[in-house]
């Protein structure tokens, strides 16, 4: 068998699996999206139909807020952890990255334990303020949930990027008289910018498409994935659900493609 034939055969199983279980189904999805009462204009409904547009805006705002909060927290912590060595540092890093593999459902449960009816925060506020604060089942709870699975991911990425920083640039800035604040602003953060932007894009795309967390916290939180779910299962509006899914998929993919032009390698949303 020639080498070229061997290479081609090696790709065959992959081709079969990907076509059968991804490409064809996705095609089916796109076609179904246009097969409902609204036809092709179902795809525009996400922008024009007030109910859908409200959900879209909700989702985008939530994702944006999550992104900003995560980047700020994770950059500060990531820089701090990578640049300082102290007793207990390794344990702290392990604690911060431990939730990395939690599925959205489990994260939802964590939030319930923190801010639910029997939650820790509720108990503390009851002690201090006399009133139980319960917000797990609202958009605030969802926000917290998104932070929960976004921060570990971004911290790891930032720490890796900080490690690769060229220290001699900072030393040169110091030699020229720059104070720490200026060094952070002019040397460190610009150098970390690609990693920050790439991570931010992942957080945003993941938050847009996250389902498990919202599902666990309540079925009536108004975000796009929940809308798709209810359209499909409760309203049996399959075409609309399909159209919305394709729209969501496109948005997520576009954001990640943009981020890739900053970081140069393929990255993934998950959760």
């Amino acid at each position, binding site marked *: 068998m020639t080498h070229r034939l061997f290479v081609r055969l090696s*790709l065959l199983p992959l081709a079969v699996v*990907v076509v059968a279980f991804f490409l064809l189904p996705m095609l089916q999805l796109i076609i179904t999206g246009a097969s409902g009462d609204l036809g092709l204009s179902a795809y525009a409904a996400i922008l024009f139909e007030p109910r859908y547009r409200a959900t879209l805006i909700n989702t985008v705002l939530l994702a944006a807020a999550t992104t900003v909060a995560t980047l700020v927290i994770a950059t500060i912590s990531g820089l701090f952890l990578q640049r300082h060595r102290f007793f207990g540092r390794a344990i702290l890093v392990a604690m911060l990255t*431990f939730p990395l593999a939690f*599925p959205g459902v489990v994260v939802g449960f964590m939030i*319930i334990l923190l801010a639910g009816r029997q939650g820790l925060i509720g108990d503390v506020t009851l002690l201090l303020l006399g009133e139980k604060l319960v917000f797990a089942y609202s958009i605030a709870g969802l926000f917290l949930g998104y932070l929960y699975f976004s921060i570990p991911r971004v911290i790891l990425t930032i720490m890796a990027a900080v490690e690769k920083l060229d220290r001699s640039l900072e030393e040169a800035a110091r030699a020229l008289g720059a104070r*720490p604040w200026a060094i952070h602003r002019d040397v460190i953060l610009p150098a970390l910018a690609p990693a920050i932007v790439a991570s931010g894009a992942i957080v945003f795309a993941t938050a847009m498409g996250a389902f498990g967390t919202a599902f666990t916290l309540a079925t009536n939180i108004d975000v796009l994935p929940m809308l798709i779910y209810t359209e499909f299962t409760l309203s049996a509006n399959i075409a609309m659900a399909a159209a919305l899914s394709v729209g969501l998929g496109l948005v997520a993919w576009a954001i990640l493609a943009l981020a890739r032009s900053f970081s140069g390698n*393929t990255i993934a949303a998950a*959760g």
Partner: protein
Amino acid sequence: MGNRLSFLAQLALTLLVAAFLIVPAILSMLAGVTANYFRGIRSGLTLQWVMQVWELYADTIVRSFAVALITLAVTLIVGVPAAYALHVRGGRLARAVEEIITLPLAIPGLAIALALLLAYGGLSDFRRSSLFIVAGHVVFTLPFMVRSVIAVFALIDVKTLDESASSLGASAWRRFCDVIVPNAVPGILAGSLMVVTLSLGEFNLTWMLHTPLTKTLPVGLADSYASMRLEVASAYTLVFFVMIIPLLVAMQIFADRAGRQVALR
């Protein structure tokens, strides 16, 4: 002085975040073995909730392992040769293929599940079996296996090894078995750990694809959060942690060792 203050402030923030992440996890682990969560540890430790979880959800635990292992087998058979072909061929085609297989990571699991349902929902035998779930998991985890193996190929300069083996007369299949795969083992192992971990924890896809007879552990978890008392839900979550944490630790050790090997080269 300013430095010290800044150090303490950053430390405080980091500790707060760490607490935010860890405390509920610890709470849930404790709740799983506490007789009564409302009264706390004072009510005593017990394994009754774990036992109850096993009675109610043993099938989901077993099924999750089965799905994960079958997914792993498929990604190995499909992904390792494909990674070799893509790496050796290079060029625009390889990049395009890598793009395509990575697409499922960009698209929300919900959408992929919907697509699978629309395409194969009609094949009722397939649709009602666990293999339907495996199909979804394979689509989602395949890029991790492929990328992991390609990464190790680049590290060990597999192209030159391939050429030198061919200069010694080995045919393509022979080279693959004697030289390519043995030297890709670190990447294959790392990819395998990743695939199993992801499969065990997958929810978004699986929730849409499952039937009452094909529930996996995360699907069971969602059930229990909605309908079971806190202690049972916590015990179930504890079981999940026990399954997943050794895998995470193994991946971390692997990543460290791989990092050190790179440094030595």
